[in-house]
């Protein structure tokens, strides 16, 4: 090793461990902004709390959709999956964007036309069933809960990295801040914050991609295309030393920008990555269908003034999401090369975005901004999830079932208590570190795909789907969910049930919706057809005249 490299190795900063002043200032400034915006645009009545008073523009709503959508799983987890599992990680990129096509053409406009505040509201009304309202309200809370667990994990990782504190305290502090401003603001403050958060996410995420592609001699003017040559270099290997203009390209440790041939990074369902073709398809399908069934995503369509705004906000939202998703593989590709030196070794997948920026010797303040962006992503999603969960608790359970005569002031109080209970419980579960961020979030998608999605799809598009069919379909979806979760929990605790290996593969907790969603739809159709009680005329008439005209 050259003297230069030894000197560089002696001057580098650690990837983890120490308090980082610049990034900490950026983080605190960002969090203060969120809280102030939350206070300034705070909710004044239940309508503001649940649906932002329907005052949000198309582009603004698109930004809010993107921000609400792009969680720690998108900003941190997705690159981590590609870094660890190569081409199979792309199933997350495709699954989390392709679902928006389903959402737009099958649901967005129709949901807005139906005119309800929450997913359980729609289901309870469409299927004229208080039982279904209660069950879907409970599942809305569970889905939001599962989704939040991954987010709180991501928040913990970033706070740990910036503040140099342990994971437990990082999660507790991060959760407290996000709870605080969600409580103060509700959806309207959250929506304003989401627009600011989107800008922070996209700027912080894109800047390092330009720097990395420029620094390592790839086409930097358009990084989502420029990194293609880096992928090919990974496949073919980069022999060391890699010379450009007479000087070696080095990572932050002073090590050569070199890698042994690694086709497993890009080749489909590579045997070495332990992934299969079936898993790619199952993950992709589950995420797509789950996207169209997530309560906090569906709820965003209630906040726009018109139906066409709901449709166009999806297009804007998807475009804004894609700006980040096109760039996520860049981090995994450069992370792969920059960590190929044995001294660096295989890095923690969920923090690969940050590590890649550090190993690429990007200025610490820009890396700090990137971490703040990741936290923004987690915050924006968590606030939407907490509002969706709290809405299900207060609006669908408390007001509609437990105490219909409650005052608006009382409703708001119950919503806030629901938010606190959920926030505290999620924090406790997040401390258990049950899996990678993207995987934990996938559980929420599969749950939504098996329970909420079939009810919305058939509820909107088939008047023949009735209460009996909906209940049977929902039961089938819940059954698949319960089987998968049971085997997962037993497996985690080191136990084994009959057929453990079989179920863990075919009904894996990350993608069980590949069978759960179609099964729920089929059962719904069969039982609806067999049932002698058709959907009431007034509901059919409403669907025909109000939703589908």
């Amino acid at each position, binding site marked *: 090793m050259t003297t230069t490299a030894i000197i560089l190795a002696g001057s580098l900063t650690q990837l983890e461990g120490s308090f980082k002043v610049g990034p900490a200032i950026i983080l605190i400034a960002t969090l203060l902004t969120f809280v102030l915006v939350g206070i300034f645009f705070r909710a004044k009545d239940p309508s503001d709390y649940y649906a932002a008073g329907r005052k949000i523009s198309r582009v603004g709503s698109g930004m809010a959709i993107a921000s609400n959508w792009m969680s720690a799983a998108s900003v941190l987890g997705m690159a981590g999956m590609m870094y660890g599992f190569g081409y199979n990680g792309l199933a997350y*990129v495709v699954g989390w964007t392709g679902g928006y096509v389903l959402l737009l053409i099958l649901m967005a406009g129709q949901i807005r036309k139906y005119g309800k505040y929450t997913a359980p509201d729609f289901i309870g009304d469409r299927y004229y069933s208080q039982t279904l309202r209660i069950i879907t309200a409970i599942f809305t809370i569970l889905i939001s809960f599962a989704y939040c667990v991954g987010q709180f994990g991501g928040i913990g990782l970033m706070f740990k990295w910036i503040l140099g504190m342990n994971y437990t305290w990082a999660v507790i502090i991060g959760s407290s801040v996000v709870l605080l401003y969600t409580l103060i603001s509700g959806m309207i403050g959250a929506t304003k914050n989401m627009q600011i958060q989107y800008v922070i996410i996209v700027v912080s995420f894109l800047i390092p991609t330009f720097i990395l592609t420029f620094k390592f001699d790839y086409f930097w003017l358009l990084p*989502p295309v420029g990194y293609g040559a880096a992928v090919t270099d990974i496949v073919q290997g980069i022999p060391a030393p890699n010379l450009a203009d007479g000087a070696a390209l080095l990572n932050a440790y002073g090590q050569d920008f070199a890698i*042994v041939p690694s086709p497993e990074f890009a*080749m489909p369902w590579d045997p070495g990555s332990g992934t299969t073709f079936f898993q790619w398809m199952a993950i992709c399908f589950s995420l797509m269908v789950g996207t169209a069934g997530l309560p906090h995503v569906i709820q965003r369509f209630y906040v726009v003034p018109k139906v066409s705004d709901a449709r166009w906000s999806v297009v804007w939202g998807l475009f804004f999401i894609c700006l980040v998703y096109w760039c996520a593989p860049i981090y995994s590709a450069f992370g792969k090369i920059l960590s190929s030196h044995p001294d660096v070794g295989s890095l923690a997948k969920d923090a690969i975005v940050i590590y890649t920026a550090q190993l690429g010797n990007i200025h610490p303040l820009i890396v700090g901004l990137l971490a703040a962006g990741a936290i923004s992503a987690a915050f924006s999603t968590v606030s939407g999830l907490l509002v969706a969960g709290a809405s299900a608790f207060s609006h669908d359970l408390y007001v509609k079932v437990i105490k219909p005569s409650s005052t608006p002031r009382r409703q708001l109080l119950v919503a806030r208590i629901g938010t606190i209970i959920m926030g505290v419980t999620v924090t406790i579960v997040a401390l258990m570190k049950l899996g990678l961020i993207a995987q934990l979030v996938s559980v929420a998608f599969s749950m939504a795909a098996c329970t909420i999605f079939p009810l919305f799809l058939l509820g909107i598009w088939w008047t023949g789907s009735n209460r009996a069919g909906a209940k049977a379909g929902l039961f089938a979806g819940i059954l698949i969910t319960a089987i998968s979760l049971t085997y997962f929990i037993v497996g985690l605790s080191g136990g084994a049930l009959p057929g453990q290996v079989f179920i863990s593969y075919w009904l894996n907790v990350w993608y069980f919706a590949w069978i759960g969603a179609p099964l729920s739809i089929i059962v719904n159709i069969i039982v609806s057809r067999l049932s002698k009680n058709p959907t009431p005329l007034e509901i059919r008439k409403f669907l025909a005249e109000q939703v589908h005209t």
Partner: protein
Amino acid sequence: MQPKSDYHFNLFQPYTEHGRKIRNLILTILAVWAVCVFGFQILLKVVEKPTPEASLNRFEAAYASLQAGSNDPEIIRAFLHSQILTAGKNGIKPVDRVVLVAGINLAFQMLVTDSVREPIMAKLPEMITMKEKLAKSRDQEYLDLKTGISRIQADLMTMTAPLTGFTPEGLEAVILVSCLKTGAPEGLSSPVLESLPAVMKLYLTHNQSFLTDFKFLGFPFHYFYTAVFLLILFVGLCLLYNLRLDRRMRVEKIEE
């Protein structure tokens, strides 16, 4: 077409002309979406062929020769180099890494003479101890350890280069040094190394086809298609749907 009085309808059987046109638009977009996403992956699966890396062929030839009792240094170097290229991948499972490290140490010990082996082995314990401390160290202590490890590695790489044929500062030399262990190596027929051919085959065989070999804008084509093109397609499909719907509403004078 007029609405029926019972108001029964579904996606496939709309009850108005407007509904029929919307249905056609939706089904067309759904078909394009499904074929482009899942159809392409199925095609990728159908045309794929398990393809070995060049180093797997070298390994298998060298492994067979060594099993037959060969001591040819060139064969041992090929045996070592192919394993180094596998151990350098950072997605290797820990259990498989143990096998690779054993194989690399065996090949290395077969290459070196006693006079070279002793000074190399003498430096290893110090480096291993420093690496163990590194994980728990902070700030200045971390930097000192890192610099110390780099110095020992540089010495080891210079000492091993003439034997292995690797460039002294190259990645292969670094990987070799990081894999070296003290003590006697496992034999080729030992239980640990029994699974070496299977481990090498696992990590050096990849599903390839003309779709993965063809390059587009620098990408392997299938990677570009999935990571870049599909996202463009999704935005395009959503845009198309909204534009067509808005146009239809204008034509039919439908107002919200």
